[in-house]
């Protein structure tokens, strides 16, 4: 092989490389334009709602701009008191239901997950299969009998139907998520603790729980978001306006079509999703990892 052919090939190779680089750069630019435009379209409705919550009534409809000409902070005050019951009550109700639901979910689901992931007992495989099957049952199938049961117990128009099921590990999804996490923890820890005479409860409390804080936090966050947004449960069980949670109250704005109060309605809508957005901003990493890990929602 002569020097001439060698340099020829290397020239060709470098030519190929620059060509490839240029093509990659162009593709990268196109990709960025695509991503920027799509994300703007995605986020625009939310920003529009935020700006509409600050616009005066006559500037809301068909107005595409995201910057209000005048800031109508009054909307928030009006919205807060627009319904016969003030939003202070609705937010308090939502907070009570959500906080208790989150606590119930984390405790009861971690109990069940600990039993499935770490303890040996007869019938475990059958229970596990049944637990996984409940993941697939649509809520609508159990809704009516559950309602009749709670009606018998006199629990309709209280928060008990919304809270008690959470203390009975009603969300198999969280059990599944926690089992996945518990299984990654080394078993030697349990065994060493057992030799030292720890009871299963002590192992759960002093070893498994402290090491599973990320999983518990993930479950707590999802549980918070879903309970806070839950509409069907409160819709079925709460009839008295002073018991309403925030989503039910928001819906009142839509049903009273005669009153045109779009600004205040958007103001309350923004406030209703604010806790979720804050949670999302703070715990974004955990949320995204939780979805990749469990593949749900």
């Amino acid at each position: 092989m002569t020097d001439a052919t060698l340099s020829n090939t290397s020239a060709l190779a470098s030519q190929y490389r620059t060509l490839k680089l240029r093509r990659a750069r162009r593709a990268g630019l196109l990709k960025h334009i695509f991503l920027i435009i799509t994300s703007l379209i995605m986020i625009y409705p939310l920003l529009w709602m935020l700006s509409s919550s600050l616009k005066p009534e006559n500037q809301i409809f068909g107005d595409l701009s995201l910057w209000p000409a005048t800031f109508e902070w009054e909307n928030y005050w009006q919205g807060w008191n627009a319904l016969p019951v003030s939003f202070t009550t609705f937010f308090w109700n939502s907070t009570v239901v959500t906080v208790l639901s989150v606590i119930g979910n984390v405790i009861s689901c971690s109990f069940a997950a600990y039993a499935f992931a770490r303890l040996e007992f007869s019938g475990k495989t059958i229970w596990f299969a049944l637990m996984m099957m409940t993941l697939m049952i649509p809520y609508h199938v159990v809704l009516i009998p559950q309602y009749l049961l709670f009606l018998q117990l006199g629990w309709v128009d209280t928060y008990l139907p919304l809270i008690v099921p959470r203390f009975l590990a009603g969300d198999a999804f969280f059990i599944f998520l926690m089992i996945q996490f518990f299984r990654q923890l080394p078993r030697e820890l349990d065994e060493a603790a057992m030799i030292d005479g720890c009871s299963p409860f002590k192992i759960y409390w002093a070893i498994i729980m402290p090491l599973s804080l990320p999983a518990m936090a993930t479950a707590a966050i999802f549980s918070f978001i879903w309970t806070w947004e839950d509409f069907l449960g409160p819709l079925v069980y709460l009839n008295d306006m002073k018991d309403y949670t925030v989503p039910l109250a928001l819906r009142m704005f839509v049903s009273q079509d005669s009153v045109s109060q779009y600004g205040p309605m958007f103001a309350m809508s923004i406030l209703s999703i604010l806790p979720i957005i804050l949670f999302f901003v703070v715990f974004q990493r955990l949320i995204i990892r939780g979805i990749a890990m469990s593949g749900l929602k």
Partner: protein
Amino acid sequence: MEKFFRRNFAGYAFLAPWLIGFFLLALGPIVASLYLSFTKYNIVRPPQWIGLDNYFYMFQFDDRFKKALQVTFTFVVISVPAKLIFALAVAMALDKGVRAIGWYRALFYLPSILGGSIAVAILWRQLFDYNGVINAVVRWFGIDGPYWLSDPRYSLWTLIVLAAWQFGSPMLIFLAGLRAIPNDLYEAAEIDAAGPVRKFFAITVPLLAPVIFFNLVLQMIEAFKSFSGAFVISGGAGAPLDSLLFFTVYLYNEAFQFLRMGYASALAWVLLLIIALFTAIAFWTSKYWVHYENERG
């Protein structure tokens, strides 16, 4: 006997909350719901056994049932593929190291986390109002937009767009799946002068098939169950002209507006069977297009 007791005690103690919940809130209600579906029951008078009459009536005479099926199927068949295609396109654009990927991921996921809330359903009603933002954009192109919400020909599209807007979680799952495809495959294909389309259909799609399948099944089930958006946007009853009469909305109305608990239970069972049937079909067809890595040997 005592040994048996001691060996199983801890496991069942930890499982107790779930077990109670399983029998009282899952298994019991499922059985009760099946029983109620063979009765006529309005809460006031005790259930009255009528055999298969609910089902006969449903399939022979109930036009709203047929309408609800048609609306729900249309919604599932259009919104699920739209959502998945969108999710895959964005995931592919985000794959292979885009700058600020964390930001994009968060922005694209945010609608999914808010999508189930009443605030977003309210927002959607205003966006698609005749004088709303969507028609303002349409007007730029010199087209007079339709009455999206009150014209039965268009109303379902508002909900399809709402569903597609929430493509965040399948996107995150696709992203994790794309990461697992080895880069050498693409490089090898490039040497063989394969274009982007060829690479997509010959490498990405087959290797991603298990993830596509997983997302498809999950999103299909979610779509069949979706409720609050349709409920709020349709004013609670499936209006206009039942064009938004989702199966779940019809079920809710039968059960809690008209107190036809027996008939609503039969509807719930039909929903359960439809979901099971579609999942089974998906699994059955998956033999032909989904191949798992470890199967090839």
